[in-house]
């Protein structure tokens, strides 16, 4: 499986999880376990979680760049 297929699969799984979660919250709301306001709040939390996960991905990217910079500095220092 190549990288693109892996990403596609990950996205599909994430999409399914999000859809399952929304369905779960919708059922809770319809059953009266949570109010409409609470339902909206939980959906907003899902977006907030996505935004935080995006920051984790950004951090991983920065860590990779940091490793590359330090490796280059070490190489340059040794020459």
């Amino acid at each position, binding site marked *: 499986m190549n990288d693109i297929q892996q990403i596609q699969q990950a996205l599909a799984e994430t999409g399914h999880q999000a859809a399952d979660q929304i369905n779960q919250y919708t059922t809770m709301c319809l059953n009266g376990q949570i109010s409409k306001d609470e339902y909206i*709040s939980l959906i907003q939390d899902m977006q907030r*979680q996505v*935004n935080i996960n995006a920051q984790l991905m*950004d*951090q991983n990217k920065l860590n990779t*760049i*940091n490793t590359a910079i330090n490796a280059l500095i070490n190489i*340059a220092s040794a020459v």
Partner: protein
Amino acid sequence: MKKLTLIAFLLISGCASINDGIEAFLMKYDNNQYKLITEIRAMSTVAKNNCSDVMQSKNSSIDISLKTLTLMNYAEHKPHNTTIQKSSIELNDMAQDLSDKYKAGAVSPVFCKIKFQNIEQAANTMQQIEGSKPK
């Protein structure tokens, strides 16, 4: 040699902007930040199991929202700290929302549990962000 280093860096980083390069080079792990995030996670872990007690849950939500506000304010002006700055705003929004709902009136136990779980999970992700930074 400095030019060689710069060229090699730009080649390796590909599409990364100069700002990303500066951020990546100067960012540092912050023990205070990690401790605050850990406290938020631990408090949420305990609170999610006490949702049947409304007063205790309300107090927990207020305590946690104060912690998330402290984290957000702490991170705000700390240089080269973008990922925690942005994620702490999201975490604080989550916590303030729950605290506001308790202050406004009754909160269902199911909602209480899910909200504390969401805060716990978000704090867990933020621990990964802060914990992975260079020491």
